[in-house]
C-alpha cells in the first residue's frame, strides 16, 4: 500500500455499504476517520508506511451502522461513492462522507489481511472464490 508517485497503485479492496442512521438532526455513520494530505502521517498508528497520507478508520462505535456493515478499525478508505480518498484533505473526506443528500455510502476499503486472504484463496484452487473482494487498479 505504499504510494510511489507516478506508479499505479494496486490494492485488494473490499466493498462496504453503510446505511446512514438518523440520529436527532443528522445522519451518522458510526466511525471516526483520521489522516489526509494536510495531516501528519507519522502519527498514524494503522498505516503500514509512515508516509501514507490516506484516510484511515480510527474508531468504530460498537453496534453502529459501520460496525454492522463490517467496517473494521484500521481500514484505509480508498473510495467513497466513487470519489477517490487516497489523495484528499481531511476536511474533504469528512464532507464526502457526511453529505446530507446521501443516505447510503458505498466505501471501498483495504486492509492488510485482504491481501493474504486473496493469496490463500488463489493458492490450491484454480478459480477464485466469489466474495466481496475485488482487485482494483488505480
Amino acid at each position, binding site marked *: 500500500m505504499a504510494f510511489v508517485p507516478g506508479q499505479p497503485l494496486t490494492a485488494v479492496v473490499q466493498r462496504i455499504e453503510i446505511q446512514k442512521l438518523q440520529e436527532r438532526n443528522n445522519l451518522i455513520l458510526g466511525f471516526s476517520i483520521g489522516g489526509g494530505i494536510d495531516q*501528519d502521517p507519522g502519527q498514524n498508528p494503522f498505516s503500514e508506511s509512515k508516509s501514507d497520507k490516506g484516510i484511515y478508520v480510527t474508531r468504530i462505535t460498537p453496534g453502529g451502522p459501520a460496525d454492522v456493515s463490517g467496517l473494521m478499525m484500521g481500514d484505509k478508505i480508498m473510495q467513497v461513492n466513487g470519489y477517490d480518498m487516497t489523495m484528499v484533505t481531511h476536511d474533504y473526506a469528512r464532507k464526502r462522507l457526511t453529505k446530507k443528500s446521501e443516505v447510503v455510502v458505498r466505501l471501498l476499503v483495504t486492509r492488510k489481511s485482504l491481501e493474504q486472504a486473496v493469496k490463500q484463496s488463489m493458492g490450491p484452487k484454480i478459480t477464485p472464490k466469489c466474495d466481496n473482494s475485488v482487485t482494483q487498479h488505480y
Partner: protein
Amino acid sequence: MDNESMYSAYSFKSSHSRTSRKHRERRDKHRSKARDSSLRGDKSVSIQAPGETLLDVESTRGDDRDDNWGETTTVVTGTSVDSVSQEDLTRISKDLEESSPLECRRYFGVVLGAVLGLFALVTPLAFLALPQLLWRDNLDPCGTPCEGLYISLAFKLLILLISTWALFLRPTRATLPRFFIFRCLLLALVFLFVASYWLFYGVRVLEPRETDYRGIVGYAASLVDALLFIQYLALVLLEVRHLQPAFCLKVVRTTDGASRFYSVGHLSIQRAAAWLLDQYYSDFPVYNPALLNLPKSILTRKMSAFKVYNLGEDNSTNASSGQSRAMIAANARRRDNSHTEFYYEEAEVERRVRKRKARLVVAVEEAFTHIRRHQEEEAVVSSPKHPREVMDPREAAQAIFAPMARAMQKYLRATRQQSYHSMESIIDFLQFCITHNMTPKAFLERYLSPGPTLQYLDSSRGRQWTLVSEEPVTASLRQDQVFTLKRPDFSLVVTVTRLPFLRLGEEFVDPKSHKFVMKLQSETSV
C-alpha cells in the same frame, strides 16, 4: 544573653590558655629545627625534622599508626639532622650538578646582546660627534635642516631605547640546549649592519675629512631608521610570529597519565618545549609518587598461586625455559580474580578517604568558629566584662590549629599528601587565611585537591629538564613529531598534531524565513 556570652568567653579563654600555650612553647622548641630543614633548599619535597610531633602525645593515643608526622612516607627523608645518609648524598650530588651549568650559561647570551645593542645605540651619536671633535673648523655650517634632523634623531633614539628596554631587557626564563636561531640571526644582522656602516663611515668620512656636515647627519639618521626597522623585524620574529596557533601539542606525563592539550604557533622544538614547561608548572597537578601503584596485596597474590618444582633434569637451560613457560601457561589458565580484589580495595580506600574528609571538614568548620575578627569599637564594650586576649594572626592560627590537627593529619595520610604539607606550612597557611578573612572552605581548598606543581616549588633555583628528540631541536614543529622532556623521576611525552585547515562557509538566513506549521492529527467522527 549576658550569661551566655560570658560563658563562651570564659571557655574560649580557658581552652586558649590551657592547650595553646602548651602548644606554643612546644612549637617554639621545634620551630628552629623545622626552619633549618626548609632552608636546606630541598627541591621537590619538604623535609621535616624527625621526631616532631603534631599534637600532644595524649591526644593521638589510639591512632592506629605512628604519632610522628611524615614518618611513613615513601619519599626521601633525612634520618637525622647531623648524619649524612645515602639519600642525603644523592640529594647533594643532584644539587651540585643542577646549580653550576645554569648560572654561567644563563647570562652569556644576555651579555652579548647587551653589548651589541649598546654599541648600536652609541654609533649614531659617535657619527655626529666625531667630525665635530676632529675637524670642527672645516665643517660647512648647517642651519635649520640639521636642527630638524637632530630633533628627529633624538626622538628616534629615545623610541629605540624604550622599546629595547621593553622587549629585550627582560630576564630570560629558560636556557635552550642549542642556539636560539632567530635571536642569533638578529644579533648577526645588527652586527653586520653596524659594522658596514662604520666601514663606510671610516672610509668615506673620516679619511677624507668630509666637510658636508648635513650629509653626515643624514647618514646617522638613516642608521637610526634602519635600526628601528631591525627592531621591527626582531619583534615579528621573536614575539609575533608564533602567536597564531598552528599546532596542537598533547602532553602526557609518563608516571600517572595526566594529560593536556595546548595550541602553539610556529615554533622550533626547543622553544615549544620551553613554553610548554611554563604551562606545565601551572596546569598539571603535582606528581605524587606515593599514589601510583596497585596495592601490594593484589600484585603479590598473582605470583604465589603455583609453585613449580624442578624434577632434577640436567639440561638446565631447557628446564628453566620450560619452567617459565609452564608458569606462564599456568598463570594464564588460572582464573584471575585480582580485578575483583582491586575493585573492592579501591572502593574501600575511597570510602576511607571520604570519611576522613568529612571529619576534616567538620573539624575545620568548628575550629573557625572559635575565632572572630576583633572590631575596634568593641574595645569599649568589652572592657568592663571579661577582658579578651587580643591576638595577632600567628597566635590565632596556632590556637585554632589544635582541634583540627589530628583530622588534618589523618586526611593527608589517607590521600598520601603528607609529604607535601608540613605542620609549619599548614599553620602558615592558616594564618594567611585568617588574615584575609577566608572561610573554612577556602582554607581547605588547598588540601582537598592536589594543586598545580607551582604551588609546591621553591623558586630559588632553576629546574633541570632534558629534551629528548629524534630530530635536531632547532627544527620547527611538524605533524607527527614526538619529543620527550625528561626529569629524573618522570618524563613528559609530547605529540605534535597540526591544527586542521578550516574552510568557513557562509549561509544567509532570512529572518523572515522562520515559519512554522502545526503537526495536525485530527480525528473526525462521521
